[in-house]
């Protein structure tokens, strides 16, 4: 297996179809270039989460090819996939934290798997990841003791601790209040602009999607700020992908989406 080329997309879907009782995705194709963030949108049940699970090979497609980090995962055995999955971080819709482990053990899970125990170095890395999401005080708490927003932030810390090449966010702001949602989006923007991680993000909240496309992270101010001063929205490398009736009906930038005249898209955005 050859290493991924610099210009090669990190994720490539080619004519991917999957059906359960009814078809959910039919012959969809798209690419996620390195360093780009792709926001998946669409009404409930259009297969957005499914795309993330297919990209991680947690599910296999009925037809089509999926290539991740230069490796075709469609026909790979479960055993072969574990090494590849370690290069990808995923934030699940309901956080999916291990409820019998503390925050530290949750965030350090991958590292503990490699070394077999919590070392000083792992402790320091967990602290750094928790500091990134501003939750360093929750070290010894259990997930049940955290609020919904805090759990999502711990899930982000768990996903980024190994600095994966690709991040998959499944509705990271779903069911959260606007203030907490903004905090989560700020963290995702920070990850995008500081570490330039390629990512796929599923969201139902248009506001979050447009905030991501129109804001960048200012390291000096340590906060998210609107783009300006010679930086265009296109420079944010954030593109949109809209799903409807088992197909991708739009793929492009925020500006292109707003200029789109398709009646369904106009209604969706309104």
């Amino acid at each position, binding site marked *: 297996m050859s290493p991924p080329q610099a210009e090669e997309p990190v994720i490539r879907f080619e004519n991917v179809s999957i059906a359960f009782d009814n078809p959910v995705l039919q012959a969809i194709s798209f690419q996620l270039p390195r360093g780009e963030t792709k926001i998946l949108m669409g009404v409930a049940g259009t297969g957005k989460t499914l795309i993330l699970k297919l990209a991680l090979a*947690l599910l296999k497609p009925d037809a089509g090819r999926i290539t991740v980090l230069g490796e075709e995962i469609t026909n790979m055995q*479960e055993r072969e996939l*574990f090494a590849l*999955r370690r290069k990808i971080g995923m934030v*699940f819709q*309901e956080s*999916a*934290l291990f*409820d019998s482990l503390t925050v530290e053990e949750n965030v350090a*899970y991958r590292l503990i798997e490699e070394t077999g125990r919590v070392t000083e170095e792992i402790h320091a890395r967990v602290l750094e990841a928790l500091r990134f999401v501003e939750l360093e005080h929750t070290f010894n708490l259990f997930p049940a003791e955290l609020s919904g927003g805090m759990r999502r932030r711990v899930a982000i810390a768990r996903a980024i601790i190994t600095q994966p090449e690709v991040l998959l966010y499944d509705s990271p702001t779903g069911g959260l209040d606007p203030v907490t949602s903004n905090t989560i989006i700020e963290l995702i923007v920070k990850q995008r602009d500081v570490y330039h991680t390629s990512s796929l993000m599923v969201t139902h909240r248009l506001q979050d999607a447009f905030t991501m496309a129109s804001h960048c992270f200012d390291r000096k101010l340590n906060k998210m700020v609107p783009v300006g001063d010679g930086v265009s929205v296109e420079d944010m490398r954030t593109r949109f992908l809209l799903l409807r009736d088992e197909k991708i009906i739009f793929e492009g930038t925020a500006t292109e989406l707003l200029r789109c005249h398709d009646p369904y898209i106009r209604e969706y955005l309104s």
Partner: protein
Amino acid sequence: MAIFSPTEFAKEQVQAVQDYSLLAGRSLSNVFAQPRYIADTLIQADLIGVGSLPIVVLTGFFTGAVLALQTSSTLQQFGSLSLTGKLVSLSMVRELGPVLTGLMVAGRNSSGMASELGSMKVTEQIDAMRAMGVDPSKKLVTPRVIASIVMLFFLTIISNLVGLTGGMMVSYLLLGLDANEYWTTAYQALRFGDVLMGLTKPVMFGFVIASIGCYYGLSAKGGTQGVGRATTQAVVAASVLILVSDFFMTRLLMGFFQY
């Protein structure tokens, strides 16, 4: 639209058998592959072995006691009351010790495994584990299978001993038999084949208990109701499989030892 499709039903059953066989096979083949989760195995051994000790001791004791009580009246008719020890010993070691210990541990641990793994499944923790590059069959199933096999083996030995003690108490206190005679007949009745048969069964039952519990847990779907369903199904399936496999193993081992 057809309400019930026999073809679909048959396909589902075959699929379930295939999934179970793959999981069961992988749980054993994982023993020979890195990483080995020794700490997880020890934790499970503590939960399954030490945790089940009180119920195994209680059931073992009273099974031996009631066995002595029930058989004594029949043996008395033939003037062979002194054979009580022999009868309790053979019944406990060859059959009741392994089977009852297996059923008790199945009731306690198959359900525990199914509910724990089922909860993890419906809250996406299993998917999260896979997404982080950790094999749930290695991390969750193999430690439970190994711990169940090893601990059920020792629990059965304890159950046999306690059962014989229960039989002795009844023989000595209620039937007026000599304790020494009881132990001598009980000990002399046992042949190598009896002991081997009694100790081969828990290995099989331990495997059934853990693999069935884990299979139903990992295939749970449909929220908390699904977890409840998986728990019940795990106990029923494990108990039935223990009794069915007991029959076939007994027949096989009897043929092997030429009874």
